[in-house]
């Protein structure tokens, strides 16, 4: 074991979590190694970002009709931690408001949960859960063709405390706890999730938030996939270095020997082959 170890700095911005309003795409969660549309989760890596269904899809902004369904107004109260918005709530809100969610709409669900915070103070969503659209709403979103889903809670579709989840429905939060579970994004409905997360919603002074908003990241990402293992990468690198070095040594010897320049054209083979190894190692291909 090495006595000496080290670490390198990482300057970046994590625009995710319970403290920052952000957009989740269908690339956010995987199910059995697949993302939306059955694509491989290998298309998404921490180093290279998402090669498909990435948030860059929104780089020109989003223009569509927004529909706010006010569940808090419907119920005459804010929803409690762990309480799910059910499809019948959405139907009732539509009826009460005289609107109908159509394909391509951006659906915003108001739970009024922030009012609870203002009155009673913050809670830890990881411990207490948060109201959200219940997993039972996924077919509803799919049927209506909802393009984006936004909410005023800590998560668009999860973090329901298990004891609060209505019986007879598996919550996204429950499934998230299973290995490889789909998590809290309703990617099955191809819905982009907008979280109205905000610092104010977080329990003040809790350690679990320490440092979160202070991270800053600037990254230039070029799409790059890996189809070789780190071991293969190393082998190609070592081979590349050896072959290029051999080519350089041969070139020096031949030049020193005063060989005709035409003969040195043969060195293309080691130079090309060595470079191939080095570039392959860099590109992980």
């Amino acid at each position, binding site marked *: 074991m090495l006595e000496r170890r080290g670490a390198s700095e990482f300057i970046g911005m994590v625009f995710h979590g319970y403290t920052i309003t952000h957009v989740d795409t269908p690339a956010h969660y995987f199910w059995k190694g697949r993302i939306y549309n*059955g*694509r*491989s989760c*290998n*298309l998404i890596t921490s180093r290279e970002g998402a*090669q*498909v269904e990435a948030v860059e899809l929104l780089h020109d902004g989003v223009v569509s009709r927004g529909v706010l369904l006010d569940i808090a107004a419907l119920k005459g109260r804010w929803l409690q931690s762990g309480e799910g918005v059910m499809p019948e709530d959405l139907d009732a809100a539509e009826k009460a408001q005289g609107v109908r969610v159509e394909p391509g709409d951006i659906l915003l669900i108001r739970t009024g949960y922030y009012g609870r915070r203002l009155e009673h103070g913050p809670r830890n969503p990881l411990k207490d859960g948060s109201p959200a659209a219940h997993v039972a709403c996924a077919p509803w979103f799919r049927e209506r063709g909802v393009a984006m889903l936004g909410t005023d809670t800590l998560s668009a579709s999860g973090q329901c405390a298990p004891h609060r989840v209505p019986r007879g429905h598996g919550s996204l939060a429950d499934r998230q706890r299973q290995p490889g579970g789909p998590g809290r994004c309703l990617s099955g409905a191809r819905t982009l999730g907008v979280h109205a997360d905000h610092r104010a919603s977080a329990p003040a002074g809790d350690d679990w938030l320490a440092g979160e908003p202070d991270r800053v990241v600037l990254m230039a990402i070029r*799409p*790059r*996939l*890996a*189809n*070789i*293992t780190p*071991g*293969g990468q190393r082998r190609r690198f070592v081979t590349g270095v050896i072959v*290029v070095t051999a*080519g*350089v040594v041969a*070139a020096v010897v*031949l*030049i*020193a020997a*005063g*060989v*005709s*320049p*035409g*003969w*040195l*054209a043969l*060195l*293309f083979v080691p*130079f*090309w*082959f060595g*470079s*191939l190894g080095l*570039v*392959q190692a860099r*590109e992980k*291909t």
Partner: protein
Amino acid sequence: MKLAARGTRETASGGAEPVRDPAEARLLRAQARRVHIEAVIVGVLLTGLSMLGAAWRTGSV
């Protein structure tokens, strides 16, 4: 690169498995093309430099 051309990826056990996702396979093939082109360019440059060195040594230039 050979793996990408075959539409496969290396596994931890040293074998290869097929890349079933068409988008992923397409990206890998594009990457492999870039690798190949870059290697040829570097090879040509180094060879050219060597030949230039030899020409200088023999007094051709």
